[in-house]
């Protein structure tokens, strides 16, 4: 296995996703130590931004998948749709 394959292989990809999870989880307790901006009610809630980021990203992916069902057409759609080409 080459050096490049080690860097970008399946093992490395698994490791980086786990590292990301660890980093993400680490930011949760950090919230106790730092002063919250307290800009509005739920700004202070523990993990609000984490949950909001996860949920909104997930919802956007689902929404995009649904929209995709409606708007996706084959690649040559405009070539033979009788449209302005």
């Amino acid at each position, binding site marked *: 296995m080459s050096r490049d394959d080690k860097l970008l292989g399946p093992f490395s990809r698994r490791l980086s996703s786990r590292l990301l999870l660890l980093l993400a989880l680490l930011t949760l307790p950090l*919230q106790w130590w730092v002063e919250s901006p307290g800009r509005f009610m739920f700004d202070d809630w523990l993990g609000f931004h984490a949950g909001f*980021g*996860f949920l*909104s990203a997930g919802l956007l992916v689902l929404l995009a998948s649904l929209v995709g069902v409606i708007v996706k057409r*084959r690649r040559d759609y405009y070539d033979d749709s009788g449209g302005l080409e």
Partner: protein
Amino acid sequence: MLATPPWLILLVAAAALGFLRPSWRPLLVLGAPLLALYGVWQMADGVLLSAPFMGYQIELVSSSPLRRLFATVFLLICLVGGLFALRHARWWEQSAALAYAAGALGVCFAGDLITLFLAWELMVIFSTVVVWCGGTPAARRAGIRYAIMHLIGGVILKIGVEGIVTQTGTYQIQALPLDNFYAWMVLAGILVNAAAPPVSAWLADAYPESSPTGMVFLSAFTTKTAVLSLILLFPGESVLIWIGLFMAFYGIIYALLENDMRRMLAYLIINQLGFMLCGVGIGTELAINGAAAHAFSHVIYLALLVMCAGAVMIQTGKRRYSDLGGLARCMPLTASCMMVAVLSLSALPLTSGFIAKAMIAQALVEQEQILLWLLLTATSAGLVIVGTRMVWLVLVRERKRDVQASDPGWNMRAAMVAFAALSVLLGSFPELLYGMLPYVTDYQPYRAGNVINQLQLLLFAGLAFFLLHPLLKRTSAVSLDFDWLWRVVGFRLLRLVVESLLKLFQGAEQFAQTLGQRCWQDIVRLAGPYGYLGRRWTATDMLLCMVGLVGALLLYRFLL
């Protein structure tokens, strides 16, 4: 102090480029923006150059901190984009790009609506040429659609400008209240260039068809001059908030759907413009600062992404995710720059995206627009998905066997590194950017709470990508956009109308022909050689006829 208008320097350079020897051209391509940049930084505030034009005294150069900010970033694009294109683009593309930049600078420093309109049209002409420089049949067709859309936008803008000039007698650039038809027309004309729905599709239609080098210029000038014009003419108009919000969601959803890397970037531009329009719509000093800062930083990191995508396209000949993968191995520098651009796009602390977006977010909170804040923050989480997906599919995922590539030439590498470094520099030292903003600000983006909140948002959105990315299939398909309305529905309707009219004319012609034939047959039957009138009459018939006619005449005279 003003020696020469900065746009004139670029226009002269654009005109002279074709006459120079190839070995001298780089000097002009890089020297002209540098000279213009020096001129911009030497400018004092106020009207610096005016001239009579068709009975009006127009202000060709009017300077302010906001205008200088936009001019600076446009000239940076001109310089670094020129460097990126140096050994790849033909001279006429570079010449068109310089003239296009001159138009953008003309808008930046326009002191009145007439100058703004003239510079606006200059941009339309040369941006169309830049699209055409893509050199493919698709680029030619997209360029024509782009020109039609922008010429219509120009006509709308002109109607508005003329109406305002004749109605109020003033044509200076100042905030226009949206209380009359002409102000709405000016707004509509500008929104065409800002790629606001329902005419947003021109951006994703035309920009990806330009050359890998041409898109760097296109990604910066047209839409950002529209943002500047909105800041100057319509600050605080709440309608912009809702248009901006729609653009943010529309852009991110379509970017998530795209399989074509360059079309995805085009949708990202629309998404980011949505943030800027929201800032302009809020209209407070902090929000305007945020919109201006975001425009500045966005131009840099988006141009960086466009350069990286362009480098990938030049080196591999491919632009679809389904055809790419594993390029981090063979294009390490391009991969590193793409990572920086994606992190900046996601607004990671220490990048330029963070310091700009944080300002808009703070302005929303100060105006108690919490729902709006939530919605825009949700699209920020979507940006993490889009960026991570790009990195994953182009750089990390298993390599396609037929893709052989290496980092591009020295000029392209230098251009990408320059913008990556600038993005990190601005993010690390926000006062560099904040010092150029139109309003003095003491806003501090790097509060511990802010940073932790942002990191939580980004990291957990990134986790959502790893869980859900199989849902975003890389289908080799095209996503129908608003342009479907005129490319298919509109065209079919037009064809239906033309065909109906043709049928109507054919029917009328046939009817007239049949009627004529029948009339002729009746005449022949009546007066032809064998018709009733044509045959030989007997003396009795003639006499009876004469008597009848004389009797009728007498009766007529008698009764009247």
